[in-house]
């Protein structure tokens, strides 16, 4: 299995450690005191789709970057890999 690192090219998946759904990027960051429900949904509920899925992978044995990998959970095809920091910057500017 290989992940095409945006800066370093295709790398064996054994160099990476997977965390999970990329929705973990959207931590509720202005928490009012009573936001337990929002935090519960953020941390515990998952779409867990059959098909396209955005995931967070850490390049443990590489450049120690967090990547967002768009992968198909049925065919295992990977169609996009980006640096998480770039995606967030894009997100902030939109």
């Amino acid at each position: 299995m290989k992940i095409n690192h945006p800066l370093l090219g295709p790398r064996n998946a054994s160099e990476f450690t997977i965390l999970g759904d990329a929705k973990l990027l959207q931590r509720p960051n202005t928490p009012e005191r009573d936001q337990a429900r929002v935090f519960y949904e953020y941390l515990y509920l998952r779409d867990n789709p059959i098909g396209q899925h955005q995931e967070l992978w850490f390049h443990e044995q590489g450049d120690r970057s967090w990547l967002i990998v768009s992968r198909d959970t049925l065919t295992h095809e990977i169609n996009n890999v980006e640096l998480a920091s770039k995606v967030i910057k894009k997100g902030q500017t939109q």
Partner: protein
Amino acid sequence: MIPKGSGYVNKEKLNSALSLDHLNLQWPALSITQSSFKEICSINASLDKQLDLNERFKEEYGISLPAPGKMVNHSTGSVFWVSPSQWFVTSNECNPYFDQLLTKKFNDVSTVTLQTDAWISIKIEGPASLDVLERLIKIDLSERNFPSGSATRTGCSHMTIFIQKPHQEDCFIILGARSYTKSLVHTITQATENILGKKE
């Protein structure tokens, strides 16, 4: 070493010993030896200061910071890319305060950390180098994909290492973590013996 029964102790300097200081394994088609560098520091560009750091580095060393997966030599050592905001700078002069020397030069645009003692460095040289390394490293080290001046971090049988090809065709440098010295040397020796048989 500290001579026995010497008088006032404070005058004694401590002996500096690398954990890998006598590696020399020879086969007709391959040699595995300890490669020498004296100091390494990590230099990390501060937030949004990457271009400034590159400018300051060019002024200081006459070369720009290398692109991802690359290394460049400078007058007293080399520098190689480590992560989107981090490079390792090496020096051939011994100086346990090498990080403070770099901090003075690039303080306002970066942060610096001494790394020398964390790494051992092994040189693998000879026509059989690719045959041995294809049993240890998963990335394509052929000239086409890993030309001279390449350097990157990757896996090597359950360990994490840097692999570099500083200048010529069949000569590679492997940087491994200090505590893994014995395991890394054994793994490389085992792979070589599997191909070239027991060393002389």
